Structures are given as structure tokens and as C-alpha cells.
């Protein structure tokens, strides 16, 4: 079993704290042997986080709806969703989100929204970011690596505007393009710092070319292995769904983002699926810890 011994060597290097090279990662990404990739990623995540899995309860609300109605008191982060067409709309949404959020952090929008709003105002991304920041926005919900040309410039711009704990995402690139993006994210972290998390979002469902579980699990594992200098690999609880999100935890992810704070069940609104989240984390052999929108653990 020669294939096994190659992985054994890689496993030794990972457990010795050595960073895998770009070539190693590319070779891993090319093999269909998802279990070996998962084992390596899992070994690395255990070195970094032990058995801890964090999760955050997020109240999502569209920018044009009432935040007071949508934000549950148990949410730890308020996220503005949707793409407002003007900066004024975006700012008023952030302000009302912040009003409801109080001490809790407010996130929202994608980097692409920032560019679009800037273009609409005849302004610059820096100005738009500064205004959003003043209105109370603490984090962009998505910084899609696969949709920006110069990610270094984006990260620098965000740093300058005072955004911390950046969360880089990959929205729609095919799995084969992930590896290079992840390696670039790791290089960016070496150079500029300030990147808290990478969230490889599951690809948008296209009935003609559906995304698959292998792609999603591999994206998580490759993100973990390629960027050992980024603390957190996230999966989006709602977009992955409970089963795949749980499996992703065994493929290197250590954080469940976007757990609903409350949801509308057919027989009425119920509290967050907290029990379900914790049960899934524990059934995968990990220990669950809640965090807030600033990645601080909440002691219970």
C-alpha cells in the first residue's frame, strides 16, 4: 500500500507541526481519497483546537425588514442580509440593526456590495467602508476570494477602515480552483494578518451541475491544511445542513457559523436548534462551546 505510506509521511509532518507545501496540498487535492485528506485535516485541527468546536447563533434579517421583530434575544450576532441598492438604505439598515443589537456585533453584506455601493455613489470603497463602520458594521459577512481580483488590496482596505477578524469565503469556484485560493489566503495572512476565519461555502445549487458532498468536504479539509496560520475554518450551519456540517467537523472545520437564533417551525416559532447543534457536535466526538460574533467564548 504505497498510497498509505505517502499519507503516513504527510501525517507525520502535520503532527510534527510542519506546514505542508503548495505541492503537497495540490497533490492531496487531486486525489479522490477523501478519507486520507480528512484524516490529515483532522489531525491538524486537533493540534490547533483539540476537540473544541465553537458555534455562533446569528439573527439574520433582510436590510428592508424590521430588525426588532427578527432579532431574538439569544442571538450573539446580528447579520444584515440582502443587497440594498443605495448606500443610504445600507446605512439605515446597519443603524437599526445596531440599535437592536446593543453590545452584540453587527455583520452583513459582501465585499461586492461595497464595490457596487461605491460605484453607485461615485465614491470609493474606502469611503463606503468608513461610513458603514461608523454606522455600526463590525464585519463583512462575505469576502469572496473567488470574486475579487486583488485580495491583498481588499484585505488592506478593510484593515485601514478598521475591520478586524476578517472572514474570507469562497462562494462559487469549482473545487479544482479552491486549492490555489486557499494557499493565497494563507500567504495573505502571513503578510498582512488579521484574517480570523475561512469559510468555504457550499457551491450554489445548480440542478444541471449539482455540487457534491466530496467537493464540500474536500474544500473544508484543503482550507484547513493550506492555511494553518488562520485560526478558524467555518461551515455555515444553514447552508451545509446539519448532516453535512457535522461531517465537515471531522474534515477539519472547527466552527459552525450562522446557527439560527430562532426559526419558524410549522407549529410556530421555536428557540434556536441549539440542542440539535450541540448533539451533532458531540455525536461527532467533539465538545461544543458557544461564541459571540467577535469569536470570544461565552462561558456557561
Amino acid at each position, binding site marked *: 500500500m504505497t498510497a498509505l505510506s505517502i499519507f503516513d509521511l504527510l501525517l507525520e509532518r502535520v503532527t510534527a507541526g510542519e506546514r505542508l507545501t503548495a505541492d503537497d496540498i495540490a497533490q492531496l487535492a487531486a486525489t*479522490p481519497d477523501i478519507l486520507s485528506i480528512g484524516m490529515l485535516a483532522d489531525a491538524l485541527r486537533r493540534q490547533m483546537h483539540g476537540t473544541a468546536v465553537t458555534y455562533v447563533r446569528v439573527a439574520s434579517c433582510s436590510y428592508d425588514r424590521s430588525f426588532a421583530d427578527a432579532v431574538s434575544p439569544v442571538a450573539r450576532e446580528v447579520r444584515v442580509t440582502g443587497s440594498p441598492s443605495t448606500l443610504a438604505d445600507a446605512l439605515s439598515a446597519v443603524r437599526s440593526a445596531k440599535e437592536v443589537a446593543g453590545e452584540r456585533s453587527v455583520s452583513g453584506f459582501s465585499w461586492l456590495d461595497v464595490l457596487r455601493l461605491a460605484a453607485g455613489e461615485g465614491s470609493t470603497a474606502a469611503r463606503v467602508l468608513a461610513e458603514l463602520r461608523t454606522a455600526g458594521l463590525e464585519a463583512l459577512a462575505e469576502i469572496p476570494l473567488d470574486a475579487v481580483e486583488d485580495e491583498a488590496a481588499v484585505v488592506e482596505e478593510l484593515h485601514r477602515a478598521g475591520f478586524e477578524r476578517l472572514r474570507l469565503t469562497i462562494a462559487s469556484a469549482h473545487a479544482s480552483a479552491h486549492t490555489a485560493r486557499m494557499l493565497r489566503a494563507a500567504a495573505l495572512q502571513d503578510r498582512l494578518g488579521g484574517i480570523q476565519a475561512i469559510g468555504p461555502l457550499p457551491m450554489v445549487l445548480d440542478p444541471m*451541475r449539482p455540487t457534491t458532498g*466530496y467537493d464540500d468536504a474536500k474544500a473544508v479539509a484543503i482550507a484547513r491544511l493550506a492555511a494553518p496560520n488562520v485560526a478558524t475554518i467555518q461551515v455555515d450551519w444553514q447552508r451545509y445542513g446539519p448532516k*453535512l456540517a457535522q*461531517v465537515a467537523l471531522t474534515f477539519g472545520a472547527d466552527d459552525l457559523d450562522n446557527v439560527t437564533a430562532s426559526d419558524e417551525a410549522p407549529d410556530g416559532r421555536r428557540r434556536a436548534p441549539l*440542542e440539535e447543534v450541540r448533539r451533532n457536535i458531540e455525536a461527532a*466526538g467533539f465538545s461544543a462551546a458557544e461564541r459571540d460574533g467577535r469569536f470570544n467564548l461565552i462561558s456557561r
Partner: protein
Amino acid sequence: MIDELASKVLDGSRVTADEALALYRRAPTHLLGRLADAIRARRHPDRIVTYIIDRNVNYTNVCVARCNFCAFYRPVGSSDGYVLGFEEIFRKIDETIAVGGGQLLLQGGHNPDLPIAWYEDLFRAVKARYPEFKLHALSPPEVLHISRMNRVAVPEVIARLVAAGLDSIPGGGAEILVDRVRKLLNCYGKATADQWLDVMREAHRAGLRSTATMMYGTVETDEERIEHLIRLRDLQDETGGFTAFITWSFQPDHTERGGVEATGVDYLRTLALARIVLDNFENLQASWVTQGGKVGQLSLAFGANDMGSVMIEENVVRAAGASYCMDEVEIVTNIEDAGFIPKRRNMHYEVLGDPIFRERDVPRMLALATARAEGDTSVPDELRQYLARSRAGKQLRLAQ
């Protein structure tokens, strides 16, 4: 300890119940996957992953068994109760053939108003109209029900159904083959563990092949899950009649039992364990219909070598809350993405060929059909020819 067990499994040795328990409880998930994958690779070195195009039809939802984990059945006399007409079933067969299918998976409730003649006439009518079409029909509890209702011994029921056109038997109704569990699930009456296995033994003796299943995640202990697997392994040693094994998690929504569903990692571990314990089973199916397409696909790394059926129609799991759908294009994409070669098969796991949609245009199917349109309470004409046993059934006949 786990390392020793792992090398024992890799050497191809059979594991005992205690060893299986140790692996299930203590082996890391990736290790279980690796062991199962090694066995899968040994049995299927060609990297072929199969699937079948067939339709999952439930001829009636009226059932006297009242299993408390079931959201599909309706009691005798319920206004939601239905029996499909022969014409409705022919239409479903036509639609199945149109998308390249050659078989119905035909199962239903234990309806006291369908005598054995109804089944025989249905099977004969199907075979007369579609001589090449296969009937993978009537799980062991249904065979027992027919035997009891008609006072005909099981071997004779099987012989009569085979004479009428039965081709093979699905492994449904096994749940967990431990009587303590069956009593708690209220399915001891429909078939005890021994009775379920006896029907399969008789079917295998009669020359039929069948599948075997396990529904886990209700009240059973880990030990009982393993006992279930070992009982299947023992019968397979004896008859060799099982073609494949399928496991899935209890789907709690809308059931009397309720509760929560076992998680995705539980599923992958259970599947891998089954591959390790069932060393005399050739094929393991992935249950995408309960786990979703993505975890369904990941099953291929945890011991599965078959993506099951495109199903076309599904009523039972849907009633309990799961509504996943995969048509042939999606199943094939998933198999290829995972690095395997997709092949169409029949119930005997004989390869029939490459994906049908690459040979000719097949309509995409983005949702599974149901037994009947919502609110369709029509009673098929031919039912009046068959004697009803229940009071409600008799009244229905009189009204016809």
C-alpha cells in the same frame, strides 16, 4: 486494541460481536471509513459504483401493523386510506420505462382487504403487459400478512406469488432484528426477528434473491445494532441469498414515536461498521433518500458501492419529513465526482450499461413523485371483485 482490530479487519478476518462493538465505540470515524473502504475496494477493485433505475411504489397505505416509527400508514377505514388501481400502477410502469427503468419496488401497508388473489392478479396483469419488467415486491412482513390473512403457509404464498410474477423480495420491515426492540417499536406483531429471517430463508430456498435492511436510531443499543448485523450475516452464510444491505436512520417527523434523528456521522459510522461485519455481503447501498445527496455521496468512502435507486417516487420517508431527490444525472455526477465509474444495474447487481441519459434524452426529474395526487381518494373499479375482511372495507365495496 483498536490497532490490532484494524489490522485484523485489513487481513480479511471475520470480526466477532464484541470486536464490532469495540470498533464502533472507539475507532475514529476516519479509521472506520478506511477499513470499510479497504473492504469495498477488495470486493469491487474496478471502482465501479452501481445504481438502479426503478420506481418505489406503495400500493396501499392502509395498514393494521401500526408501527410507532411510521408516518406513512393510515388505519383501516381512514378517509386518507388508498389502494392503487391496476391502471394507476400500469401508468407508473409506463413512466418508469420512459426514464429507462425496468423494475418496480412494490411495497405497501398490511391491508386486510386485499386477498392473495389481488396480488396474484396484479402480478399476472403486469407480466402480461410488460413481460420483461421486474417486480421487486413484498417485504417479509407483507408476505407474513398475506400468509395469515389467507391461511396459506409462507412457502406456498411465496410459490404462488412467484408463479404470478414475483421476481425478488425487498428487505424492508427488518428494522432491528431483536425482539426487545421490536416490542418497543410495536412491530413485534407484524414479524418477530425469527419470523422475518424465516421468510427470507424460505424465499432464498425458493430461489429468490433479496436485500436486507436495518433502520437504526430508535431505542436500540449499540449491542442490538450489532446483533442485527450478525443475524443477517448468519443467514447469509446459510443461504447466500442476500444481494445487498441498506441501512438508514429512523425519520421521526410526524410519527407516533417522534424524537430526533440520528446524526450524519452516526450514519457513516453505522454504514462502515456494516461493511466490516457483513463480510459475506457483496453490495452496500448508500441511503441518499434519508441522508441527502451529499452525505449519500460520502457514503462511497465509508463502504458503500451502490447509490441505490433513482426511486422516481417515494412516499414513506417523505411522510416522515425527508424530501431529498436525486435523478440519474445527479446520481451519476456524484459517483463520478467521487472518482468512481457509474454503471446501471438490475436487482441482481448485473451491470446493464452506462447512464441512460448519455444514450438518449431523458427528462430531468427535480422532485420525487407521490403515490397519488393530493386529495385523490378514488377507489379502483377492480377492487369490488375482491372480498374485503374489515367492516370499513365491506362498506366500501357495497358503496361501489
